[in-house]
Every structure is written in C-alpha cells, then in structure tokens.
C-alpha cells in the first residue's frame, strides 16, 4: 500500500475497518488544528475544518474501563464465548488522548479483580474466520 493510496481513503467506518484488517489502528487528524480522532471523523468537531488526514496511532495506551461479558452477541457466541468462557471488552485511552472500544486480551476473565484500570495496553488484532469470511477485530493486550 503506497502512502498516497493510504491518505486518499475516505474518513468512513469502512476505511477504518480496512486499516484494521491491515493491522493498523489509524486516526484521522485535522490538518488545520492538529487534533486527531479515533474513531475517525470527516469533520473536525473542534474547529469544524473538513481537511483531515489519516495517521497511524502509536498503538499504546492505558485501560480506562472494562467488563467481563458472560452473555454476548451472536457473533461472539460463534467465536466460542459463553457463560463458561466469558470475554473482556473495554475502553482504552491512547497516548494521543483518543479513547476507543476494543476487546481486551492478555488478561484472565475469571479474575476481574486482577485486571487493573490504568494498566498499560498495546494494540492487538484478533482474527476470526478463513478466506473471504475472515474478520479482524481491534483489541488491546495488557502489557
């Protein structure tokens, strides 16, 4: 992927997902005021500029909130999660300041008291399915 094709992608959820599939957590950055956004935005809410660019985040952050889910949506059940095998979802605050919802990996879901808010996290990508069915999910791993 050349730098040029990367930067001309629209600021849409489909484009964000395409980056996730390439194992890149991208932000949209306002060219005018420099503020960056995850999830991406096409219009800067701070200065209302429409001139944005894609930038890759550091992928580093800290855990802001989390939960251990025992009863998940169908697509998580299809991935093998249920009451006996719960999973962790959370919100991570990136070094750049933006916050994002993600799966949380590298923790023991059966010991929530040992999962500490403010712990350092690094971006991770969880894949499920094969071939055309493959889907990549944004995750953060506890460091």
């Amino acid at each position, binding site marked *: 992927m050349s730098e040029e094709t990367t930067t001309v992608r629209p600021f849409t959820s489909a484009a*964000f997902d395409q980056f996730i599939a390439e194992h890149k957590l991208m932000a949209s950055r306002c060219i005018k005021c420099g503020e960056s956004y995850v999830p991406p935005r096409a219009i800067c809410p701070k200065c209302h500029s429409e001139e944005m660019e894609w930038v890759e985040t550091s992928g580093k952050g800290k855990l802001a*909130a989390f939960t251990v*889910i025992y*009863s*998940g*949506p169908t697509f998580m059940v299809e991935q093998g999660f249920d*009451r006996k095998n719960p999973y962790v979802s959370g919100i991570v605050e990136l070094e750049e300041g933006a916050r994002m*919802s993600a799966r949380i990996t590298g923790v023991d879901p059966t010991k*929530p008291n040992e999962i500490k808010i403010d712990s350092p996290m690094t971006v991770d990508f969880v894949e499920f399915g094969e071939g055309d069915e493959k889907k990549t*999910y944004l995750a953060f791993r506890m460091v």
Partner: protein
Amino acid sequence: MPTSRKLGRGVAMVGAGMSRFGAFAGKNSRDLFVEAFKEIKKSVDKELDPSLIETLYIGNFSSDQFEHQAHIAPLLADAVGLLPRPATRVEDACASGGVALRQGVMAIASGLYDVVLVGGAEKMTALNTAAVTEALATAADVPYEIPAGFTFPGFYAAMASAYMHRYGMKSKHLMNVAIKNHDNAALNPNAQFGMTIQNWMEGRIASAVKKGKPKPTWSTIWDFLHDESGNPTVAWPLRLFDCSPITDGAAAILLVAEERAHEFTDHPIHIIGSGQASDSALHGRPGLTTIPAAKIAASQAYEMAGVTRDDIRIAEVHDCFTIAEVIASEDLGFFAPGEGFKAAEDGMTARNGAKPINTSGGLKAKGHPVGASGVAQAVEVWKQMRGQAEARQVEMDIPLALTHNVGATGSTCVVHVYERRN
C-alpha cells in the same frame, strides 16, 4: 450556543395512565397503548372528551425489530379513535418516551396545539433474550462499539468499573439500589416485578423444594445476591439483579395549554422545565463516571424552571442498571460525585428518605419497555404529586419533582421538572 430557554406559554399535565408492565403473550404495542389510553381517560378529573385531542407524539424505540412493525404512530392513533390527527413517532433509544414528552411540551408552548397526547409503547417479549439484546445493541455506535463485543449491560458495567476504581465503590453497594427499587415495585400494582428481593428469594427456595431439588442455603437476601446461582453475573461487575428486565408496556399523558387546564382538572401538574442534550458513543467522552448529557439537560431544565436541585422533592431516574441510578443521582446534583452510592446505602433515596428516587420501582423493578419508560416516569410523578400513589405514596408534600430519561449510554438525555401549585 444559548442555553437559557423559556417556554412560549405554560404547559400542564391533566391526565396520566399506563398499562401494566410485564410479559404479555398475545398483546402487541397497540393493545398495550389502548390499555394506557383507557387509564388516561379514568385519570382526567373532569372527564375527557377524546375529540379534543389534536395531535399525538409516540415514544417507541424499535417496533421494527421487536414486532416487525414500523410506522406505529398512526396505527396507535387509529386504535384509540383519533384519526386523522397527526401522529408522530419519536425515537431516541431508551429516551424515546422522554423526548416524545418534550415534543409535546414544545408543540403546546409554540401555540400550535392546545391538547396533546404523549404516549410511549414497546412490545419486547416476542423475541428471545439474545435477540432482544441484539436489538437493544443497535442503539450503540454499531460500527465502532459492537465489534469490541460490548452489550448494554457491558457498557454500564464498564462505567461501573471506572466508578469503582475512582471512588472505591464495591459491587455490593449497587445491590442497595436493586433492593430499594424492588421494595418500591412491591407496592406498585403496575410493576413487572411486584415483589421484594426477599419475596423473590423465598419463591426460589419454595420452588426448589417443590421440584425436589437441593434446597438453596441462602438465609438472607445478601447471601442470595452474592450467589452465582441466585444472582448470576451478566457483565462483571453487574449481575442479574443489577439489570432492568425485558418488558412489554405502554404509558400515556395528556398535556394541555396551561390556560385550558381548568377544563380538565382543578389539580393540574405544570411542566415548568425541560432540557435535552446529546453526546458521542461512550468511548468518545472524557470521563466514564458521569453522563455529561444528563448534567447539561438537568441544568437547562433547572434554569428554565427557575429552581435548584435542592428544591426537587422526588425524582424518577433512568435506572436501566443499578450503576445508572447512582450516576444519575450525582449528575442531577442531588449528591456530590462519588457520594451517590453512599446515599443509596444510607437510605437517603428510599421512599422515606430525604430524596426519594424511583418510588415506582424504577426501570429496574417496575420494568423497562424502552419507548414507554420516559412516559411512565411522568405517570409516577403525576400520581405522587397528587397524592394518588396509594401504598407507595411518599409522606412529604411534593410541590416539585423531576424525571430523567437516558438513551443508550447517555448519547441522549432528557430531563423535565414538574410543579404542583395547589
């Protein structure tokens, strides 16, 4: 952006009614709305001539998903004999009812209409729990929040984790909210769970004995609430009794121009403050221990009403989860940040406390038919302010009350302030 707003003219509530809340096989949202409409007619002191009603606003989150029936507002108007009056469905997730109420207030304040029926209806139990969970999840920011595996209990559980980390609350503190709201619902004949948690536990024990199963060893409700078999974890730290149920139900209120209230009753309840605000997905906010849209909506409503938080005697707040009631009690200014869970533990929000919250049983125990919940909050306020809440009537006089209705994780919040003048 100017925040100080006034109503163009006064608005009064002159009738209020609701269906029973629960799981009703064979009844759709239309049938439930008909029940609420019959109740509203009974509630109007000087008899209601339905032909005076000029328009309808209907709060409904997702009849499309729950009943495979969109465009329900004209159907509900037809069902209660009000064609060809304009009927408008209002959708802001779980705040649909409160926002429909605000639309009704604005319709009268603008001078366009004098008599407005505000309704809310939701039929949820035709789908199984997994399908309802997924339907509710569409109120989230679907492309960015759902791939993380979040569910609605999960979002509020995440808020609870942040709150516990910041303020030292334990999950047991949240149980005080559930116990209180079940105590209130036990006195509400329209509640889905008209029983205390003690009643519930005893029922579980009796049923186990009857079926010849091992008798549970719970001796107090605290044993029951801390036991995975009595109170399973749904999304840590939230357990089953931290969550509002899946409910069928409808509610309706009748609003009129203040100068015409005397045609309907000598004891109207005036709506003197209204506020509403929007916000991003949960991850887009700077803090997770508060709902900023609720603070903004409340300050707008207080300012319009010319009252302060201390003037409010009782409040019906959006307790879709126990943590949501704790956060609401702080966002509305009743308690300082980090103090809401202690106030619940100290009984300050109980029916006989200094600031009774959710005397109806709240969403938690009265039930949460999402589009109807915001309207049903106004029904409870109507009854309490007029001394008609029967066994659950609070003792103190209630000249001012408040309702607080939240959509999703707080992407919408709408607050109203009510006044009784005689």
